[in-house]
């Protein structure tokens, strides 16, 4: 029986199909991560009109151009500040930051630490390919020790970041690490991260056969995937400090942190707006609403759950 040719893919409603096939190299893990993210969205029934994908610069940054939702392709390393701005102005939207290790942890290193500290209600998907892929495979702060890159031909001398551990310590609500081989677990992890309130962070180890694999004894497309399958250990509630990745050694994957719901930054911001409204005298409320009319749609969504909607007659002037 031959394979059946199709012209539509089940995830096509979420994709800008006119831009496919995408620019990523054959065997790149980014497509797998995007696939898992869209499947998680589909399963949760998230509305694409109420979801914003923000990404920085780099191979992973191209994601923003392929999703059929509102998306931002921001300046280098500044995906998190843009996402914070969106979330602060429109708390009713689901904001997802989809970016790479270089963009989030090297160029935008400070932003992500402070975003975790503030506990903003956004989901961050950090695709870790251990390298600056787009610019030609230079050494990144996530490159494992002794790995060979174009700028470290004798092997990396520096210790890499333990991204998952750093986020767990900085105050994130949910921290997980998966690889592209564990596609089903990744999908479940993303589902959990998307439905979690507070700062959720998912690190995905993804192969880069073009810039990283071929210089580090993973020459073929499938070799990196087989490497992850061989060396990954799935643990229940692992210690975030055990998350260091060393070449040719077992590494830990799983859920590093799953904290209880804590008040998020945008919750506190909404509390402030609410207090401001309630402290306004009845006579001035119509004026207050006019002043905030640009945010009326957002306010209406938030007010619906709060029961402080203006009484009849208040709007008359």
């Amino acid at each position: 029986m031959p394979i059946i040719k199709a012209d539509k893919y089940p995830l096509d409603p979420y994709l800008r199909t006119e831009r496919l096939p995408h620019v990523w190299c054959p065997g790149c893990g980014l497509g797998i991560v995007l696939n898992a993210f869209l499947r998680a969205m589909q399963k949760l029934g998230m509305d694409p009109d109420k979801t914003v994908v923000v990404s920085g610069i780099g191979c992973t940054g191209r994601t923003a151009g392929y999703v059929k939702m509102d998306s931002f392709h921001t300046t280098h390393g500044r995906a998190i500040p843009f996402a914070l701005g969106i979330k602060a102005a429109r708390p009713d939207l689901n904001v997802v930051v989809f970016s790479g290790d270089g963009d989030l942890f090297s160029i935008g290193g400070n932003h992500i630490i402070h975003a975790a500290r503030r506990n903003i209600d956004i989901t961050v998907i950090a695709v870790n390919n251990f390298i600056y892929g787009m610019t030609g495979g230079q050494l990144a702060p996530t490159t494992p020790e002794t790995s060979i890159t174009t700028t470290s031909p004798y092997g990396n001398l520096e210790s890499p970041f333990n991204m998952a551990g750093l986020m767990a310590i900085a105050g994130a609500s949910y921290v997980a690490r998966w690889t592209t081989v564990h596609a089903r677990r990744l999908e479940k992890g993303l589902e959990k991260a998307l439905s979690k309130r507070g700062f959720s962070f998912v690190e995905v180890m993804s192969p880069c056969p073009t810039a990283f694999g071929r210089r580090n004894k993973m020459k073929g497309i499938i070799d990196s995937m087989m490497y992850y399958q061989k060396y990954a250990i799935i643990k229940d509630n692992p210690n975030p400090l055990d998350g260091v990745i060393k070449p040719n050694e077992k590494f830990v994957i799983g859920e590093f942190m799953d904290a209880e719901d804590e008040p998020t930054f945008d919750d506190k911001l909404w509390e402030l707006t609410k207090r401001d409204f309630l402290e306004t005298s009845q006579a001035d409320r119509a004026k207050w609403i006019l002043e905030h009319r640009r945010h009326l749609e957002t306010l209406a969504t938030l007010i619906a759950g709060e029961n402080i909607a203006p009484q009849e007659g208040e709007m008359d002037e």
Partner: protein
Amino acid sequence: MVTEAEKQRLLEREAATIPRGDVYIVEERCKGCGLCIAFCPKKVLVESDRINEKGYHPPELVEKPPVDVCINCGFCERICPDFAIFVKEKKVNNSEQ
């Protein structure tokens, strides 16, 4: 001598159906990375001789699968980075298996 419990178990096995799937492909999106071929648990896929628009070899089904036919596990569609391959459940009768 077949015990009552074992008889029940055999009857139940007869009633249970192994899911079967049809494999679909959006050929012009395939980049021939071979991940679906490498990770198919039943080894039903193989690289074809044809080339697509971009000059890659998309996968095709093996004529005689070494293990079993497609069981609709859906791993190829999750491991495919190019949104090209997917499976759909095929409705089959018990008697046909």
